[in-house]
C-alpha cells in the first residue's frame, strides 16, 4: 500500500512539474511578453525597462525556475491589471468555485448512481430505456445553452430562482445543475455497465446461494465492487467541472475562479491566467491522486499486494 502510494505520488509530482512548465511557457505564446505587457503605444525603452523589471531578459530556464520557486512558496506573481498579489485574489475566489463544483458533483452523483443501479437491475425495461434516454439527451445539451434555458424558465418566466450572483444557496441551484448534469451521462453509463458486469459475476451468485437478503447482495456485495471505477471517473469529472465552471460562472455572474479566469483573459492579465491554469491543474492532480488512494482502499487487490 505504501509503495503504491509513493509510486502514485511521484508520478503526480512529475505531472505537476510538467504542467507548470507548460503553464509557464504560455506567456511566450503571444511572442514577446514584455511587448504585450507594455501595450501598443510603448516606446522601445519602456519595453526594455519592463523586460528587465519582470526578468524577461534572463535565459528561459532561469526564468522558469525562479517562477516555479516563487509558485512553490505560494507567490504566484503580481497581477498587471489588479495591481495585487495573484495568490491573494485566487484564494478569495477559490472557495466559491469549490462550493459550486462540490454542489454540482453531489447533484450529478445522486442522480446518476441510483439511476445506473436501477437500470442495471432491470436491463432493457422501461426504466432502463428512460435512464439511457436521459443519458443520450444530457450528452447532447451544451451546458451554456442549458443554463440559459434554465434562466429563461426558472429565472424569468417562473421567477423561482435568482439569475445572477453568489450570495445565497439559492444562487447555486441552477449553476450546479447546469455544471453537474453534463457529467451525469458518463457516470450513469459507467455505474450501469459496472453493475451489470458485477451482477452477473460468480460471487454474486455465491452471495445469493448463501441465502443473503437481496438488499445485502445489492448494496454490500454488488455496489461495493461496481463503484470502484466510478470513483476514478468522478474525480476526473470533478476536475473537468472546475475547468468548465468558467462558462457557467460567467453566465450566472458567480464570483469564482472561472469568472476571474475569463476576466483575466479579456484583460490579458498573464500572471493571473497562468496561476489559475496552474492551480486548477494541480487541484486535478491532487484529486486523481486521492481517488487512486480511495480506490486502493475500496479494492483490496490494490491495497494488499
Amino acid at each position, binding site marked *: 500500500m505504501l509503495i503504491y502510494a509513493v509510486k502514485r505520488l511521484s508520478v503526480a509530482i512529475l505531472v505537476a512539474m510538467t504542467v507548470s512548465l507548460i503553464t509557464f511557457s504560455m506567456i511566450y505564446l503571444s511572442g514577446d511578453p514584455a511587448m504585450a505587457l507594455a501595450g501598443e503605444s510603448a516606446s522601445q525603452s519602456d519595453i526594455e525597462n519592463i523586460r528587465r523589471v519582470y526578468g524577461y531578459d534572463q535565459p528561459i530556464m532561469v526564468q522558469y525556475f525562479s517562477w516555479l520557486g516563487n509558485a512553490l512558496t505560494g507567490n504566484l506573481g503580481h497581477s498587471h491589471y489588479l495591481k495585487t498579489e495573484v495568490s491573494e485574489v485566487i484564494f478569495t475566489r477559490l472557495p466559491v468555485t469549490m462550493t459550486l463544483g462540490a454542489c454540482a458533483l453531489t447533484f450529478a452523483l445522486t442522480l446518476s448512481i441510483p439511476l445506473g443501479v436501477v437500470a442495471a437491475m432491470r436491463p432493457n425495461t422501461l426504466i432502463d430505456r428512460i435512464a439511457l434516454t436521459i443519458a443520450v439527451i444530457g450528452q447532447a445539451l451544451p451546458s451554456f445553452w442549458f443554463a440559459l*434555458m434554465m434562466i429563461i424558465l426558472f429565472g*424569468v418566466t417562473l421567477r423561482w430562482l435568482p439569475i445572477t450572483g453568489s450570495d445565497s444557496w439559492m444562487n447555486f441551484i441552477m449553476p450546479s445543475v447546469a455544471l453537474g448534469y453534463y457529467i451525469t451521462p458518463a457516470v450513469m453509463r459507467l455505474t450501469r455497465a459496472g453493475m451489470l458486469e458485477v451482477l452477473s459475476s460468480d460471487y454474486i451468485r455465491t452471495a445469493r446461494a448463501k441465502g443473503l437478503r437481496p438488499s445485502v447482495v445489492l448494496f454490500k456485495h454488488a455496489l461495493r465492487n461496481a463503484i470502484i471505477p466510478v470513483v476514478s471517473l468522478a474525480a476526473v469529472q470533478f476536475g473537468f467541472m472546475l475547468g468548465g465552471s468558467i462558462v457557467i460562472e460567467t453566465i450566472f455572474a458567480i464570483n469564482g475562479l472561472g469568472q476571474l479566469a475569463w476576466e483575466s483573459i479579456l484583460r490579458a492579465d498573464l500572471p493571473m491566467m497562468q496561476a489559475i491554469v496552474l492551480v486548477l491543474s494541480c487541484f486535478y492532480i491532487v484529486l486523481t491522486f486521492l481517488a487512486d488512494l480511495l480506490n486502493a482502499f475500496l479494492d483490496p487487490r490494490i491495497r494488499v499486494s
Partner: protein
Amino acid sequence: MADGTPIVLSDSPRDGVEPSPSQRLKKRAFSHMGFVIGGIVLLSIFAMAMLAPLIAPHDPYDQQLARKMIPPIWHDSAKASWEFPLGTDQFGRDYLSRLIHGSQISLLIGFAAMLISGVIGTVLGVAAGYFGGKVDMVVNFIITTRLSLPVVLVALAVVSLVGNSLWIVIWVLGLLIWDRFAVVMRSTTQQVRNLDYVAAAQAIGCSTWRIIFSEIMPNIVNNLIVVATVEMAHAIILEAALSFLGLGVQPPAPSWGLMISEGKNHILFDPWLVGIPGVALFVLILSINLLGDGIRDVTAPENRN
C-alpha cells in the same frame, strides 16, 4: 473452415445460404433505431451545410436595421412573416439563413478538430498499446499531463494569446482533445496485441509496421470510429462554448455558439434568439452521438451496454 472441412452442424431448420457477415451487419444497422435516425439527421445537416448558398433564403450577413428582431412565425405577432420563418436578429439578419450557414462552421470545426486529435491520439495510443514498456509509460504520462490541463480554460487562454481565427480554433481544439483517442486506442491495442494471430504474425517474422497496419488496425477501427463521433461532438460543443464566450469564431460569422451569445442580451424579451441556435446545436450533437452509439452497438453487439 479454411481447410475445407465440411460443416458438420447441419440440423439447422433453415435451408439455403446463411447471410454473410457484411449482410448481417447491414441488417443490424438498419434495424437499429438510433443508428438510422442519427444517420439521417446528420446527413440532412451535412446536405444543408453543403447546399447552404443555394437553400438559404437570404444573405446571412445582410444587415438591415429596419427589419430587426422580427419574431419567428409561430409567434403571435403582426411582424412575423414567412419571409423570415425563424425571424431576424438584432441586426436584421435572417435567422434561418444564419442557422443554415452556421452548420458549415460547426461541421468543419468538428470534423477537422476530430481529424487532428484522432491522428495524435491514435498514434500515441497504438504505440503505447503495441510496444508497451517504456513507450507505454511515456504515453501514459503524456495522457495524464494532458488530462490535468483544463481544456476550456487553456483553449481560451491560448486563443486569446495567439489570436482567433477559425483555423486557430480548430488547431487548438485538435491539439487538446486527443486524450480519449489515446486512452481507448491504447487499451484496445493492448487487447488485440495479446491475441494469438498477432503472436502468429510476429512468429512468421512480419515487420512491426505490417503487423500494426494489417493485423492491429482493422481490429481497432470500430472503436476508433466510435471515439471519433464522440470527439467530433465534443469539438463542436467546445467551439460553441468558446464562441459563446467571445473567444472562438469572430462576428459576424454565423457560428451557432456566437448566435447564442449575441442573443443572450435579449433573453428577457426574445428568448427564441437563444433557443433556436441552441436547438440546432442540440440536434446536431444528438445525431452524432446516436450514430456513434449505433455504430458501437452494431459492430460489437456483445459489448453493448
